């Protein structure tokens, strides 16, 4: 029963972070929520006895995708600033 409780809690956390990713007003927060979501996915894969996917999710899903998204948000922000022609 312990493990089922953990699964249900993790499921709720996944859905909560996913909802935040889409619903929060600030883009940076949205991306951070997404990275949190990715890290929770790593746990979910571990629970599903899928260590290969957990490794890939950590490095690619949360890590690289997160870095790409953060960099892009920064890029969009920087260009929106008045007087910035970069």
């Amino acid at each position, binding site marked *: 029963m312990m493990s089922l409780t953990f699964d249900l809690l993790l499921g709720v956390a996944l859905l909560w972070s996913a909802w935040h990713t889409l619903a929060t007003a600030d883009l940076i927060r949205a991306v951070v929520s997404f990275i949190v979501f990715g890290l929770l996915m790593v746990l979910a894969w571990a629970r599903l006895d899928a260590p*290969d996917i957990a*490794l*890939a999710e950590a490095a*690619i899903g949360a890590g690289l995708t997160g870095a*790409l998204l953060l*960099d892009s948000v920064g890029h969009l922000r920087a260009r929106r600033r008045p007087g910035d022609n970069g």
Partner: protein
Amino acid sequence: MNRALRAAVVLGAGLLAALLVAAILALPVPAVRLPALVAAHLPASGVTHPVTAVLLNFRGYDTLLEVAVLALALVGLLAQSPPRELTHAPSPGEPVLPLLARVLVPFLILSAGYLLWAGAHRPGGAFQAGAVLAAAAVVLHLARLWPAWDRPGRGLRLGLVGGLLLFLAVAAALLAGGTLLRYPPQLAGTLILLIEIGLTVSLGLLLAGLFLFLAEPRSL
């Protein structure tokens, strides 16, 4: 988008969710059991880790096309990044991140090597190893120790698609022998390792490239 349409989308999404949940809770036991088949043929696959056997032998053709997808995305991305001025002048940044990077990166490279070697018999393999290499490059870039990339030169271009070309060459050689990606049993392990080494380098470069060709040029 008007309000009625939004309501329809939300309603449709709810309905789809309900149907899907009902469907998966009522699923019968499947007729085909692939795990048993995988286990039965594992000794002939050239590796002992089942996921690697599926990824590079039983369903290796998927992986070939998938590497093509990644290379293709990079080509499409390069078409979108206009030539730009990259600053190469070093500038003093905050000292913590570079220090961390100098410690972290050798560790990451070592782990990539370990993952590549481990993939044959336990979790790991070319994808994870390549991803860790790419992560090392991203960390170096964030620590301002490595510049963003501009136009790739021919050497880098070869590195980017070299893994794909090597995989294709092996596939073509085996196809010339009769069947696409049918490894001779005694060579299977060696050929898979060869492909995985090529893929690790190329996947590392490709994944890093997705970031470094796109990233904000940071002053070094």
